[in-house]
């Protein structure tokens, strides 16, 4: 029996979709059977980030409304046989799916896959309820900003109310040199405020833009710092104990050389 994990944040633009794509690809590269579920109906993006936008025939709403079989709607990844995507519908609205249907869908997918990773839409309305309905584990993504942390706090409260216990935190887009100068909240500040377990920290990395441009998740690039962070997070999800990457690793001259040659700390 697999595990259903929802990736959520409250605030938009903090990197839920990027996180979903990279974690799912990371888990698949470790040999796990993974399915990604895009629940952002009307604003689907996960297909583009994964570079699978040209393969879509059916979507989530087609499945829940019985227009096609579940197998028909699952898109196989280009890189991994054991990775699939169930895309969101682009032309329908959020009320087209009900939480009960999502629960049922997750139950079915759990039997086939090791991990069901759900990309949750921003906000706390219907989309959030749908995305969390079938989830048993939650990962909250935030960035080191007042607005994002505030929304993360709200989401943590809502997850607890929905009886999804012990959500874990990913701090995304942290900038080590700003933290060093005292101009950005550091990891401990955010953990203190939100009082949840840390799953990982992803440094700001220009390579994410490049990888999204190409539709190839950064987790597969051995030179990307964010990719390294996502590889570590994927391992932690499976229960492996992996230490955090030291944050100033990419600022020194020596580590830049190391990075250039693809040597990882």
């Amino acid at each position, binding site marked *: 029996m697999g595990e259903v994990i929802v990736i959520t944040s409250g605030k938009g633009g903090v990197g839920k979709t990027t996180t979903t794509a990279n974690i799912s690809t990371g888990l698949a590269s470790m040999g796990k059977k993974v399915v990604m579920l895009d629940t952002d109906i009307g604003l689907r993006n996960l297909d583009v980030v994964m570079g699978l936008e040209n393969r879509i025939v059916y979507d989530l709403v087609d499945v829940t409304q019985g227009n096609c079989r579940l197998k028909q709607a699952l898109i196989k990844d280009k890189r991994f046989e054991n990775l699939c995507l169930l895309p969101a519908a682009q032309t329908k609205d959020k009320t087209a799916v009900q939480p009960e249907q999502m629960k049922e869908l997750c139950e079915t997918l759990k039997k086939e896959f090791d991990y069901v990773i759900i990309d949750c839409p921003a906000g706390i309305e219907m989309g959030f309820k749908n995305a969390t309905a079938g989830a048993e584990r939650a990962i909250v993504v935030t960035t080191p*900003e*007042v607005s994002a*942390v*505030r929304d993360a*706090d*709200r989401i943590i*409260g809502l997850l607890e109310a929905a009886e999804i216990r012990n959500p874990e935190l990913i701090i995304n887009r942290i900038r080590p040199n700003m*933290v060093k*100068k*005292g*101009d*950005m*909240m*550091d990891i401990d*500040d955010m953990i203190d*405020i939100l009082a949840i377990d840390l799953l990982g920290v992803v440094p700001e990395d220009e390579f994410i833009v490049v990888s999204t441009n190409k539709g190839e998740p950064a987790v597969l690039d051995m030179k990307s710092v964010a990719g390294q962070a996502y590889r570590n997070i994927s391992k932690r999800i499976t229960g492996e104990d992996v230490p955090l990457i030291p944050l100033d690793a990419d600022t020194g001259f020596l580590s830049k050389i190391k990075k250039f040659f693809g040597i990882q700390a």
Partner: protein
Amino acid sequence: MDLLEKILGFGKKKSSHSNSKNIAKERLRLVLVHDRASISPQLLDALKEDMLDVISNYMDIDRRGTTVKLDSDDESIALIASIPVRGMNKGQRGMRF
């Protein structure tokens, strides 16, 4: 001297230049006190008005200069009111006997 300070203080200047993370932390802390207590600004305002009505039975207070807000330490939430007192209300209940 001034020049020397400039040279010596050169390294320091950078680190003390803003430190905006503490501002972020403090603002976030206060916002979350309200969010977590789920007390709406309207409720807080109604509470403030009622409180001031009661207090003005006893004292002459500056309603405009009054602030009512929530704050917290690690364990508890406190309601903090700052109410400037102009003087006692003569002839009111408190002074009657």
